[in-house]
């Protein structure tokens, strides 16, 4: 099997010192994705990429740019028929391929829930483990410039509920490459969620192929006072907030979950044991969103260590407005995390 030889990067500690450029090689998130695709196509003839625009001059915001030139039979454009496409991908996966299906906006996945949830996630179980669906579905979250309600949704919470699938959300270029390779190597359906605003962000990315483990969070910044659990773009906001909090003498520990299913409960619990304070920062709506779910999920394990109620930073429960002014107040960021931290501190002082 082409994938068994790849080394899993378990040296998470590397990241604690993220300022040091460990391999002397810097790529943007988009370039890291493209490189992972390229290497996967090269390594394994079963891998193919399909989706609207994967072979066009924009190449899905650059993430698949030009790949069709070398792998023309395995990188191809498709009709706009997301439900069918997902079925084609499931069928191809059942029949020995390792498809990567690309959606420019996560919102379009809503057309494909039958194939993802009734099929991809269940076929292994329904067959008594005789078949499997090695499938990667890339979903890009849009934001800003009046994308409005149908082109900006961050729907990761919905997938957290579904047995049989995995949900990953890299927040750095390093993880984008390593998690994409892991997702392709994985024998189960993986929802691979990218945030459009991460595409230009650079990181040290080794040229070789490497796997970042699915289901393992990462301490991006150590701290003893308060734990900030974040995903995707919110990891960056959390890091900014941590820097500011430090000026107030608060040492925040920032955890990038990287996967939502499976969820790395341990990394959160261990941190909360130390800090006794927890903020969860999500990209989606507050009610029934990833943050509330995580809280409900680990509540029994952290309850006794908490010095104050958990704070959630998430979107207000409303569709995305178009107006730039409303967008600005709609999206939470570092300032909201700081405010949340202060609320916790106020409460723990009493």
């Amino acid at each position, binding site marked *: 099997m082409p994938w068994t030889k790849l080394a899993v990067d378990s040296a998470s500690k590397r990241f604690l010192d993220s300022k040091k450029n460990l391999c002397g090689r810097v790529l943007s998130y988009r370039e890291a994705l493209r490189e992972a695709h390229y290497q996967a196509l090269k390594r394994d003839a079963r891998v193919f990429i399909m989706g*609207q*625009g994967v072979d*066009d*001059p*924009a190449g899905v915001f650059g993430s698949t740019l030009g790949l069709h030139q070398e792998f023309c039979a395995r990188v191809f*454009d*498709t*009709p*706009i*028929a997301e*439900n*069918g496409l997902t079925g084609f991908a499931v069928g191809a996966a059942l029949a020995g391929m390792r498809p990567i299906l690309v959606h420019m906006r996560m*919102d*379009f996945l809503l*057309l494909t829930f039958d194939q993802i949830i009734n099929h991809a996630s269940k076929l292994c179980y329904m067959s008594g483990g005789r078949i499997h669906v090695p499938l990667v579905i890339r979903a890009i979250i849009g934001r800003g*410039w*009046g*994308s*409005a*309600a*149908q*082109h900006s949704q961050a729907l990761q919470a919905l997938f957290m509920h579904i047995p049989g699938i995995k949900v990953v959300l890299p927040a750095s270029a390093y993880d984008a490459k390593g998690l994409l390779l892991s997702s392709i190597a994985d024998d189960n359906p993986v929802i691979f969620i990218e945030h459009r605003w991460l595409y230009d962000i650079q990181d040290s990315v080794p040229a070789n192929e490497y796997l970042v483990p699915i289901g393992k969070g990462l301490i991006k910044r150590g701290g003893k006072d308060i734990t900030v659990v974040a995903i995707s773009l919110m990891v960056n906001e959390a890091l900014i907030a941590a820097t500011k909090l430090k000026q107030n003498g608060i040492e925040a520990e920032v955890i990038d979950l990287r996967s939502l299913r499976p969820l790395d409960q341990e990394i959160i619990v261990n941190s909360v044991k130390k800090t006794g304070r927890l903020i969860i920062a999500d990209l989606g709506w507050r009610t029934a969103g990833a943050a509330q779910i995580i809280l409900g999920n680990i509540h029994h394990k952290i309850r006794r260590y908490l010095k104050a109620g958990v704070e959630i930073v998430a979107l*207000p*429960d*409303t*569709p995305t*407005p*178009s*107006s*730039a*002014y*409303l967008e600005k*107040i*709609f999206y939470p960021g570092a300032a909201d995390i700081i405010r949340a931290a202060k609320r916790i501190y106020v409460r723990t002082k009493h």
Partner: protein
Amino acid sequence: MIERIRAVALTQIYVMMLRIRLFEERLVYLYPAQEIKTPVHLSIGQEAIAAGVCQNLTKSDYVFTNHRCHGHCLAKGMSMSAMMAELYGKNTGCCKGKGGSMHLSDPQLGILATSAIVGANLPIAVGAALSLKLRERKNISVVFFGDGAVDQGVFFESLNFAALKKLPVLFVCENNFYATNSLQKARQPLDNIFKRAEIFGIKGWRCAGNDAQEVYDLAKRLIQKLRANSSGPHLLECRTYRWKAHVGPDCDFQSGCRPKPELDAWISNCPIKKLEIFLIKTGLLTQDKIRKIRQRINREIMRAEFLAKKSRFPSAGELTTDVYWKE
């Protein structure tokens, strides 16, 4: 001599096409200032379809459009001010700034809702027609969609149901041969959109989408049929071309999205120019009249722009209202 009613109609269509064109050209001009913060999908080059079809509609007819909706909404009666303010994200916009360019809506004008999910407006339009039938109205429901929407299974579900229940729907496909950067032939084995209705017993029609007269005449005939009896829907494929990029104010051939000669050929087949020549030839228009029409339209645009700019953004409280109806 051309008959009077027709003369009036064609002149109105001409004016409407010009309104759409000049409005969108103004967007091209304004966009770089980055005050219009919403993705604009321009219909420059495709105006004859919106204007030609909607000339046959009344306020109580429904129109459902898609991401490329400016032309259809203007043709269905939306004011430039309401539209421009919406693009600027202002509270005087037709959706109070909450919808933006892709979700223009004005129920008073029969523009109930605009979706930017490719194909999703089709069943919604059919549902509105179902309502018309259940309420025994003589109105019709028109849905504009691109060649891309034809890829979606729901296109067929919509045709099937509309045919089955004999609903008063006019399906208008604006086939501009591209869906974003994908050629129609990279997505569909045959170039036969109008024929796809026939398997449901619906007669399909095809016309030159850049010939406003052809669009108008054919749409008129079909709409009259729809109003007269309940024999079921019609499908009209209008062949056209967009001059600008899929989204945004620029053109896209430089980036390799499509061949320049193809674009040039279509630009020389301008729907507005074509009708203008005809109207001048038949004496319905003169250069002088055209100048005055343009002036009037430009004033209308300036007014819309002025209002949009001076309007306020929605208040912060607006963020969380309208999630539910009359909470």
